């Protein structure tokens, strides 16, 4: 069974704090995406990483793909209330058309 485990499952922090969300699997992925989902809406793509060891930065968000392409992390610097939401990682299993989604991290940033 292919699984993508995210941790932590829930996170409540104060505005201005830093946080890291982890996404781990025993499976190898061709690519890995991070999405954010608001209540009542579909997930919205934040970033795609493709190369093992790749690091991408989008303003206050830093995404890293593990060297073996089995894991990833999302780091948010100086969190803002607008960062509140459900963060999902999703991996495209190598050699397939199958996307596996993580269990999700529900982030709440308090003012």
């Amino acid at each position: 069974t292919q699984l993508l485990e995210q941790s932590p499952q829930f996170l409540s922090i104060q505005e201005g704090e830093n946080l890291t969300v982890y996404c781990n699997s025993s499976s190898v992925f061709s690519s890995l995406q991070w999405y954010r989902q608001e209540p009542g809406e579909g997930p919205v793509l934040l970033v795609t990483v493709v190369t093992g060891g790749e690091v991408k930065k989008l303003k206050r968000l830093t995404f890293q793909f593990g060297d073996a392409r089995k894991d990833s992390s999302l780091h948010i610097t100086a969190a803002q209330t607008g960062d509140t939401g459900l963060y999902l990682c999703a991996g495209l299993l190598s050699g397939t058309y199958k996307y596996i989604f993580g269990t999700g991290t529900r982030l709440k940033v308090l003012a």
Partner: protein
Amino acid sequence: DAGVTQSPTHLIKTRGQQVTLRCSPKSGHDTVSWYQQALGQGPQFIFQYYEEEERQRGNFPDRFSGHQFPNYSSELNVNALLLGDSALYLCASSFDSLSSTGELFFGEGSRLTVL
């Protein structure tokens, strides 16, 4: 440029009934994937359609079937509904995922409640 559109947005069915959900992909996309998202969980892959054929399937029973039309739009059919089928059903479109980086663009989903 229209994004992914799904219909209906909400629907209520009773056990044993059948349901059809519809999806129009983002302009320029040729691949449609369907996901089931239970409350508080990540989306679970149901299947993917490309060139009007199912080319990948997740761990869902045969009660779940689909179709893709020549204009790339798609339908998800669920027969003999069970209470456990209550979920948000998400459609995602992409462009030939194995030759691209595989970004998925999601619709807002169809919320199915089975009573």
